[in-house]
Structure formats: structure tokens, C-alpha cells
């Protein structure tokens, strides 16, 4: 068998396994009672993963696809230049085995998964990108660029680790400006004041719906399941901001109706849990599935892939292009709670605020094996939560389904501790 044929067959193997995984998730979810009807729009996006991801990302004639990683790459600039952004962070176990050929075993599974998808044509939007903006956020992402260059048109973006300093902010602003120039080269469209302002508004409109959704999750009744909430935000990776906003608006209307009718997807008195730590990307729904199968209510999360993604807002001040670029640079850097930064006091404040707003009873701190930034944060977070009387469970895992049963036991025990705490 020649190398090309082998490559095609390997891609097929990943594709079949991915299809099975996706199907498994939806078979389980669709059995759940009282799922909001407007989830169908978001389901469709993920179900395309069973068939090469066709139709997940809207492809208008001639619109260039710009791939991004993490949440540091400004989508506003991509939209303003007439491109379509697609976030490529990956959560598939099936492609990690391919990634392992390029990366050491100890690499984080997310990076292995992304590498796998970039090297093999399984999900078409990986191969369709005209530019892939890769911020050098953590060590893995920094090195992944060079390895990925062979398979994708990578543009590395330098990232400061100390955001309090003046020099780092200037460096980041100049990186944003460089990114803008590169995107303009790719799409052939110049980013002018009007286009940039409109793109900022486009994203802000999505954020309006996100804020509504976030407020809905603070209600006493859990009107949407944790998996669905993660799915909805995860869909923003792929969809166009405008269509996502429209779909969210309908979903929010339905959920607000549910709050009025007091329709809950969990039993009354279900334990209120929050997830935080290394991000969970579809189809890595291992832990939320276990939690919800055990009857827990996932009321909040602090992941860069969901709750954090649309939270921070660009503030246009004077309205010139430079002012907007400055605002964009600040928005994507300063409020970010990713633990790659040296001081993470903001992250801890945010966790406390979430616990307070959502009346969280217990926090599950999830680290992926090999994820050093979140690993290093564990003790700080543990101390913070303990000092505030909030129990925390540490889970270190990867994408493989082997440890599901052990996790189930541990999470079940944790939830029982929380119910016990209530009575006590």
C-alpha cells in the first residue's frame, strides 16, 4: 500500500470512530427528558462530524476560512476582512492516536487531537483554512506550530505571559496589527473603519445573547443541561456569528419561558456543580455525561471553550481604526483568565463570582494530562475555594474512555459528600 493510500485509509479509520463517538453522545443526550426544542439547530452542526464536518462551517462562495486556536485571535478582524473564522481546538480521542505520531506521549490530548485533524483529512474545515492563526499561548501550542507547518498555513502569534507590563501590551497590539495585515492579504479585503465597527457590533450582538444565556443559568430551575450549554457555546467555534446569534435568541426565548413555567431538566434539589480547568471540547463530553447521568446539575462552568469565550467585550472609545484595534487587543489579552499568565488573581475572583451568582455547591477541577498551566493552578484554586467553604474535586484525565468508571465512582462520592453537607 503506498503512502497516500495509507493516509486515506487512516483518515477513514478516524472518521469511522469519530462518527461512532458522535453518535454515542447524541444517542445518550436525545434520551434525556425535556430537552429544549431549539437545540436542534446546534445538534445539526455537530452531527456533521459524522460525515467530514461538511456544512458545520458556513462556506459562502469565495469566503476565506481563517483557522484560530485558543481564544486570543480576534474574530472581529476576520469578519471585517470578509473572512469566516473557525476555532480549531479539538476534543476527539480518535484523532489523538494520529497526533501521537508527531508529538511526545506526554503532550496534552487536545494538542494531539488538533495535530491529528490537521495531518489527516477527517474534518474538512481543518484542511480548508487559508490561514491558521496560532497564538503561542502554552508550551504545546508554541511548539505545535513548527510541527503543523507541513500540513497547514500557520501564522504564529507571539503572546505575552505577563499582561501587567506596558511592553507586553504594546507587543500584543503590534501582533494584532500584524495579524490584521496577514488576514487582509489572504482575503484581499482591507479592514476599514466601517467594516471593523460593524464586525465589532456583530460579535457584540452575539454577546448580548450570550449574556442572556448566562443570566438564564443563574435561575433556580436548571432549564438547560450542562452538556447542552457546553454544546451551544461550542457551536460558536464553527457557526457564523449572525446565525448563531439568531439561533441563540430563539433558544433563550424558549429557556426564559421554561423559567416562567419552572420546567427543570434535573430533579429538584439536584446538587449544583461547576466545572473548571482544562477546556472540554466536543466530543470530549466524558465528564459532563457522567455528572448528568448521576443526576447532578451542571449550573456553571469556567472554560475558555464556553463560559469564558464570549464574556469579555470590546469597548469602542473614539471610533478610529487604531482605537478599535487597541480596544480589540486589550479585550483579547487583559481580561483573559487563562492560567498561562503569571498572575491569575482575576481567574480566582471570577470563580468566586460564579460560585456566588450560580449558587454553586461544589467545583470539579479538571486537568488534562500534560496541561501544565492548569496543573500549576490547582493548589491556588484549592486553597481559594477551601477558604471560602466550597468543596473541590480534582480530576486529572485525558480523552480516552478507559477511566470513565473510576471517574464515575469518584464523582458520585463527591456528590454524596455535597448532599451530606447540605443536611449537616
Amino acid at each position, binding site marked *: 500500500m503506498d503512502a497516500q493510500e495509507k493516509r486515506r485509509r487512516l483518515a*477513514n479509520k478516524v472518521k469511522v470512530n469519530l462518527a461512532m463517538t458522535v453518535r454515542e453522545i447524541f*444517542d445518550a443526550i436525545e434520551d434525556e427528558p425535556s430537552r429544549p426544542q431549539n437545540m436542534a439547530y446546534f445538534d445539526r452542526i455537530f452531527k456533521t462530524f459524522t460525515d467530514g464536518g461538511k456544512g458545520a462551517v458556513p462556506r459562502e462562495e469565495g469566503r476565506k476560512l481563517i483557522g484560530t486556536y485558543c481564544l486570543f485571535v480576534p474574530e472581529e478582524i476576520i469578519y471585517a476582512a470578509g473572512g469566516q473564522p473557525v476555532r480549531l481546538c479539538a476534543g476527539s480521542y480518535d484523532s489523538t492516536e494520529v497526533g501521537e505520531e508527531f508529538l511526545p506521549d506526554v503532550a496534552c490530548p487536545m494538542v494531539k487531537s488538533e495535530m491529528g485533524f490537521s495531518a489527516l483529512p477527517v474534518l474538512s474545515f481543518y484542511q480548508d483554512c487559508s490561514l491558521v492563526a496560532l497564538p503561542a499561548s502554552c508550551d504545546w501550542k508554541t511548539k505545535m506550530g513548527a510541527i503543523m507547518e507541513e500540513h497547514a498555513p500557520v501564522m504564529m502569534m507571539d503572546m505575552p505571559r505577563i499582561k501587567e507590563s506596558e511592553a507586553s501590551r504594546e507587543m500584543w497590539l503590534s501582533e494584532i496589527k500584524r495579524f490584521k495585515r496577514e488576514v487582509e492579504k489572504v482575503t484581499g479585503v482591507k479592514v476599514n473603519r466601517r467594516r471593523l465597527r460593524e464586525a465589532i457590533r456583530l460579535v457584540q450582538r452575539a454577546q448580548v445573547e450570550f449574556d442572556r444565556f448566562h443570566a438564564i443559568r443563574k435561575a433556580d430551575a436548571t432549564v438547560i443541561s450542562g452538556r447542552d450549554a457546553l454544546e451551544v457555546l461550542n457551536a460558536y467555534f464553527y457557526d457564523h456569528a449572525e446565525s448563531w446569534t439568531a439561533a441563540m435568541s430563539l433558544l433563550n426565548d424558549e429557556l426564559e419561558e421554561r423559567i416562567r413555567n419552572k420546567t427543570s431538566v434535573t430533579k429538584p434539589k439536584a446538587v449544583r456543580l461547576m466545572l473548571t480547568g482544562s477546556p472540554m471540547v466536543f466530543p470530549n463530553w466524558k465528564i459532563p455525561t457522567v455528572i448528568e447521568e448521576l443526576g447532578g446539575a451542571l449550573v456553571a462552568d469556567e472554560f475558555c471553550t464556553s463560559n469564558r469565550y464570549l464574556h469579555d467585550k470590546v469597548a469602542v472609545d473614539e471610533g478610529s481604526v487604531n482605537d478599535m484595534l487597541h480596544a480589540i487587543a486589550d479585550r483579547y489579552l487583559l481580561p483573559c483568565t487563562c492560567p498561562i499568565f503569571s498572575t491569575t488573581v482575576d481567574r480566582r475572583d471570577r470563580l468566586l463570582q460564579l460560585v456566588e451568582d450560580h449558587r454553586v455547591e461544589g467545583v470539579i477541577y479538571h486537568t488534562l494530562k500534560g496541561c501544565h498551566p492548569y496543573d500549576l493552578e490547582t493548589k491556588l484554586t484549592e486553597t481559594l475555594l477551601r477558604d471560602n467553604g466550597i468543596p473541590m474535586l480534582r480530576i486529572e484525565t485525558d480523552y480516552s474512555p478507559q477511566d470513565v468508571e473510576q471517574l464515575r465512582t469518584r464523582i458520585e462520592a463527591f456528590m454524596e459528600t455535597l448532599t451530606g453537607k447540605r443536611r449537616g
Partner: protein
Amino acid sequence: MSYFAGIDIGSATTKVAVIDDNQILGYKVAPTGVHCEETAQQILGDLLKQLELPEDAVERVTSTGYGRRLVKFASSNISEISANVKGATWYGSQAGVTVRTIINIGGQDSKVIALDDSGVTKNFAMNDKCAAGTGRFLETLCRIMEINVTEMGEVSLESTVPIRINSTCAVFAESEIISLLARRKAKADIIAGAHYSIANRVARMVKRIGLQETVFFDGGPALNCGLKKALEDELVTDLYVPPSVPQVTTAVGAALIAREESMNDELIEAESA
């Protein structure tokens, strides 16, 4: 013309093959039952009758399989690994295929054998402790879903997206599948999922041993085209299945060894004379 026989006594079925100096004459498969030696005798007798050969036509019998030592009338016995390798490489050479890896999925076990460049066993892995990944698992499935074993392959190929079977144990998988049927999931998807589950287990064994092409696939379940497809997907290689005889490859191998040993004896006799 001399005749030789190979008897493969498996825990579920016994396979008998009869060859002459040049070719395979015939083979027969029947359930082993409780008394293996009697069964073996019976099957051999039936086969000879079928081939219109006298009862004592067979010059030498070699037995293999788990019950090989119980066949007293066999002149020799060898491990099923060696017999399988012999049979597989012979079939391979007939078809012009260089066999370097053998996957055998039997009624109650599964093996992966790696061969070196001269066709000698280099390494092997075996799962004989558990029904998962064996023919027994597929039989159970058929029973629950009320379809014929021979239909399984064709039905599974209708599936577009198989359903993943999570249970690693065949007993637990049974309950998992029953619940899937209760939720009205398509049979094709379930069977395909079972195939991928077996393929996954086999792939893990192959990973330990190392895969080298061409891969030979035998044992009864090799007739299952759906299982073959699943294995090909998981292993990312084409499998060679001997046409219509995968179940008896080991028995044929044993017969070939019987012939070889006979020729060796003659040589020794000739030399000492």
C-alpha cells in the same frame, strides 16, 4: 498416492482436513461435543466416506487445537500456532501473497501471530481468557437479535454509523445490546458496532505484536464480511482471507505437517538404510 489428515480440535468445533501428495481433497467441520476423540474419529470417517476413500487410507494424522493430546490415534500433535502458520503460509503461497501477520478469531479465542521474513513465528499474542473478541460473542449477538450467523456480515454493511459497544466483557455487552434493541436502535448499527468492538480489541493485540503486511485472516468469523471490513478499518490495511475455507486453515496446516513429517521419516529411513 498417500493421504494425510489434520485434525483441529477446538473447544466449539472440530475441523478435519484430508490432503494427498499434491492438493487438498476435502474438509469437514462439526461440533466437538464432550468426547473429542470419538468426534474426531467420526468426522474423519465421514469425510473419507464422502471422498470415497477407504477407512485406513490415511497414512498419517496430526492433531492440533486444545484437544490435540486427547486424539490417541494421531501420530503426532502440534500447537495450533504452528499449524495455523503452516496453513496460512501455504494458502498465501498458493495465492502469491507473502503472509507476515496472521489474525485468527476462533470460537473461543483470538490470536495474532507475527512471522519473520522466512515465515517462522517471531511473536504472538493470544486472548483465551475472555469471550470478548471471539466468535462466541458474535454467536451470542445472533441469538439475541434472532438472525443467522451467516447473515451478520451483509446486514452490518448496511450501517452508515455504527453504535459503539462500550462493555469490554461479552456478558455485559449482552445486556448493553439488549438495551439498545429495546430503544429500537437499528440492528445493522448494533452488529456493525459489535464488529468494531472486536476489531478494536484485536487491534490492541496487533499493536503489541507489530503489524506487517500482508495480514492473513482466518478462523470461522473470517467469513463475516462486516467483521473483515471493521478490522481493515481499524488496522488500516487489507486483509487476505482464504477463499471459502478460513475455518479449516489450521486443520489444513496440521495435515501439511503430517505430510512433511511422513516425508522426513522416509528420508531418515532411506539414509539409515
